[in-house]
């Protein structure tokens, strides 16, 4: 694309506006988008706290409670990043608002970056609220903040991207619910949030290693506990690459207008 003049080649104001719109959208319904996920994570925590007591996690020098907290925070981040992009796109499509996005002078990369950035913000807000509420009751250690940040960021980008792809693919709310309930939910639940893979029989351990979310949760948890089921620095490359690929797929889909334009 030939830029006409420097001022108009990139629509920074446009991308920023889309980003703030997406952020304000979830802030307008914060009970549903922030308080509820934080509360759900808290409930899991309370339940497992009393079910498991102060038991240690096998193979790790940590108690089950400390083990659970980072995993639940990451799970909430992943699910919310997915929900933010997928709900926005499908709502626009079902209600007919998506045409304003198509009519705006925004390039595919501007649209994708704005959507993903908003998904990351929602994920971060949810995680911070969850951890802040929890901080009086649990000893939180941020042993490797750079690992926490990187996994949090990449995880949100991957899930925000999957939400975007799901939203673009879906024709109605049911389609999005299908992806969310049959793909995202099982993958996050079976990713080692509630257990260490070392507790599993060998076959299930292998299956778990094939679940991409496992690496996200495990790496994120390593940032807090300094211990995990995998080497977080080796997984890091995989996670960064996955985030990049997801972004590229989103960009390519938006560029072609697949399922968005007739």
């Amino acid at each position, binding site marked *: 694309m030939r830029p*006409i003049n420097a001022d108009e080649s990139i629509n*920074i*104001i446009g991308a920023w*506006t889309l980003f703030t719109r997406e952020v304000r*959208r979830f802030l307008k319904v914060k009970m549903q988008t922030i308080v509820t996920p934080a509360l759900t994570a808290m409930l899991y925590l309370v339940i497992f706290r009393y079910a498991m007591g102060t038991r240690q996690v096998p193979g790790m020098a940590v108690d089950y409670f400390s083990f659970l907290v980072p995993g639940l925070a990451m799970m909430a981040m992943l699910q919310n990043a997915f929900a933010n992009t997928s709900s926005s796109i499908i709502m626009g499509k079902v209600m007919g608002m998506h045409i304003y996005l198509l*009519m705006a*002078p*925004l390039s595919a990369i501007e649209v994708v970056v704005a959507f993903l950035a908003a998904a990351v913000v929602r994920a971060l807000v949810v995680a911070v609220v969850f951890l802040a509420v929890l901080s009086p009751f649990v000893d939180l250690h941020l042993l490797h903040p750079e690992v926490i940040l990187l996994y949090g960021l990449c995880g949100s980008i991957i899930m925000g991207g999957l939400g975007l792809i799901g939203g673009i693919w879906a024709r109605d709310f049911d389609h999005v619910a299908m992806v969310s309930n049959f793909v995202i939910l099982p993958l996050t639940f079976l990713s080692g949030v509630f257990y260490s893979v070392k507790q599993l029989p060998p076959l299930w351990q292998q299956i778990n290693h094939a679940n991409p979310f496992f690496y996200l949760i495990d790496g994120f948890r390593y940032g807090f506990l300094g211990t995990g089921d995998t080497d977080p620095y080796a997984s890091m490359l995989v996670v960064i690459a996955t985030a990049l690929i997801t972004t590229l797929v989103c960009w390519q889909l938006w560029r072609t207008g697949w399922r968005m*334009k007739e």
Partner: protein
Amino acid sequence: MTALAINGLSKFYDNGNQALCDVSLDIPEGSFYALLGPNGAGKSTLINILADTVRASSGAIMLFGHDMLTERSWCKRRIGVVPQEVAFDPFFTPREVLAFTSGMFGCRPDFDWIDALLARLELIDHAKKNTRQLSGGMRRRLLVAQALVHRPKLVILDEPTAGVDVELRRRLWDFMRELNAAGTTILLTTHYLDEAEELCDHVAIIDRGKLLTARPMQEMMREIASSYLWLNYDKPVELSADVVEKLVDFEPRLSDEGVCLKLGRQQNGSTFHRAYQAAVASFGAPLDAGVRREDLEDVFLRLTGKPEHHHMVDEGNNASD
């Protein structure tokens, strides 16, 4: 200068329907252009291609000399579209909607202009309500404000007055005329042909995806529209083969106005006299008679082959006068 040059535009949908077939159209800068056609003629497809919500199968579009395909962003910043469907983000107020739209088009929100638009479209008292609380007419006006918020040079209105009451429609048109006078090029589709005739200086008619005619409104009315003599009788009148034979020069037909005799494009005294004499000779003296010039609706119906005096019904719209 040409504001919009459409060249050989075609659109096939995936289901094989051809919505547009090799349409070429030049819209002069500063014109108020009516794009007319029956339902399903391809008007909305054409507008949706311009709005970039539908992809063209082939053809080229130039906006003020810039290619829509390769300089899309440049072009989009200069187009404002009022879509047919009314839909708003349910989370925001009209003022927020306008500020967001403005930003998406790369302009920092200019709240003086936004409030001026809201005031002009009589929405200022509702600026802080949620868009869900607005009435149908208000939402439609908000759509118009939304299309104008980035001060486009070409405004495209897809049936902006469907479902809008007469009074409001008149005020909306006043506003559009003002914009047009200030140099904005306007492309309009509407089913209110009397309004199109009054407002627009150019007209194009499409039917079944094909362009039938495109010319200045005056030229259209001068060259395509013809005059006819109508004669009203207090008794039933029949056009027997014999009578048709006698009146063949005047293409006689019956309508709810009575007997209609075509006078040709240039109304001229002697034609009128001959037609009147011939009618009196065949049917006797009429109760009432007059000469009427075809209006845009008559021309439209004649060109698109729709039955005479079959008034178009706006789908989902009962608010017409």
